[in-house]
């Protein structure tokens, strides 16, 4: 008997999204199964961030279908979608400047049981323990990125939407983030990664979706990556 495929944590069908009058996404069909790491690659302005925002209902209008863990979410308010078990790490980190590091860490609601306890998070990110009383934006960029990641691990979310988490960070920090994503994958987290730094994502992801002008231009499985490098460079304008 063939082994059953892991359940679908996220599936979009014909997803379209608008900001006011601007039509950004033109029918996105993608699927992410439990435990997978999937990247959304593409040039700036291709619509990758909008896909993450549309999944969470943070765009002006959306149509089509978005199922999170089997639940249809189009028409659902953002806070209820998040409570289905989504952890979101926005572009530019979204650290709150008038909250301390610890308040930032404790802000997201627990969405599922099984999140990392605070002690474990501080053991993973000792810098955050040292700076827990500082205001969130008074710590370094790398520490802010760790904080942005740490705060969603506390919530018990199993589907992580990570937007450009390596942007503007020193190579050594990028390397530790790479290690962190690897550990999370090993622990069975499902991850959708919007990434500009293709090399960061290359050996982490199971599949790469290439986004162009609000549509999926290509889907490259991990095993075809080497053979598709030329094509990919063309898509990304490298």
């Amino acid at each position, binding site marked *: 008997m063939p082994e059953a495929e892991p359940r679908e944590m996220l599936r979009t069908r014909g997803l379209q999204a608008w900001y006011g009058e601007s039509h950004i996404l033109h029918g996105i069909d993608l699927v992410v199964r439990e435990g997978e790491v999937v990247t959304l690659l593409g040039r700036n302005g291709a619509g990758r961030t909008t896909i993450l925002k549309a999944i*969470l209902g*943070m765009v002006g209008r959306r149509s089509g279908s978005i199922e999170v863990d089997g639940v249809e979410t189009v028409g659902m*308010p*953002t*806070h209820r979608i*998040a*409570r289905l078990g*989504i952890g*979101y790490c*926005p572009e530019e980190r*979204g650290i*709150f*400047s*008038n*909250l301390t590091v610890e*308040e930032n860490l*404790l*802000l*997201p*609601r627990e*969405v599922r049981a099984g999140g990392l306890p605070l002690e474990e998070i501080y053991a993973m990110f000792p810098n955050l323990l040292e700076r827990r009383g500082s205001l969130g934006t008074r710590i370094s960029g790398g520490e802010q990125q760790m904080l942005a990641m740490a705060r969603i691990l506390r*919530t018990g979310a199993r589907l992580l939407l990570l937007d450009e988490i390596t942007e503007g960070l020193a190579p050594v920090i990028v390397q530790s983030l790479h290690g962190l994503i690897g550990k999370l994958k090993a622990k069975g987290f499902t991850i959708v990664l919007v990434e500009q730094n293709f090399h960061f994502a290359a050996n982490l992801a199971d599949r790469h979706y290439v986004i162009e002008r609000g549509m999926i231009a290509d889907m490259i499985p991990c095993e075809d990556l080497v053979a598709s490098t030329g094509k990919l460079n063309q898509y990304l304008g490298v």
Partner: protein
Amino acid sequence: MSFQAVMSQVMLGLNNGVFYAMLSLGLAVIFGLLNIVNFVHGALYMLGAYVALLGFTRLGPLVGLPDYQMNFWVALVAAPLVVGALGMAIERTMLRRIRKFDHLYGLLLTFGLALILQGVFTNYFNVSGDPYEGKPEIFNGAVNLGFMFFPKYRIFAILASLAVCFATWFVIERTKLGSYLRAGTENPELVKAFGVNVPLMITLTYGFGVGLAALAGVLAAPIYSVSPVMGSEMIITVFAVVVIGGMGSIMGSIVTGLLLGMVEGFTKVVYAPASSTVIFLIMVIVLLVKPAGLFGKEA
């Protein structure tokens, strides 16, 4: 200028100051999360005072209990609840619809609501005002402060208002609920993505902010005459307090409210005709020197 005269006026100023503080605190909380310059605040302060007054004089006969007079302590709870509920209805039905527009729309809408409320009450109760007779007997008499005899009720009003202001500050600055509010002030969309029901939080915050105004109205009822224009007389000064303290600043509104009340009192001793102008003079200076206000963050 005797010490006694100065301290007496400063104490009376402090008495006004706690009302400025409570009202500007509500405005700051509302502005912070809703981005609305809530011009109906003064009218809801007036409404709070009327809940106490009418509860004491007219509610009993209206519900078939001619001897019932709503107790002052009951009014302290009932008025914020009634006015808070009305505020939440206003937020849900009107303010929510204009949230995405410029501040000016909220200001105009709430200004219109203030005029309607004031107009309706003026029609029924005229502008001369009525005294509130429901002050508990325990507050009859005065306390010797050494430099003056200060009415017991005014001491209670000062202490109660200070307690409410600092409790509010504590909740906003030191609790988890407060961290939701502060985060919501900064980036409400992201707070929603963290599973927090921000629209409900906005409704409750507006209800709380106007509830504070109503509580100030009940506390003020035994001191000032209860009249339909009591709010509009107060609100302009309170907005000056908010501007001086820094729009949206919680501690700024409390400290500035208290200080400016005392400055107003002190000015009465030095040059009485300037006492109603001094706050606006300070506002102009602060706007020129530090436009974000004394406690506000520069953009």
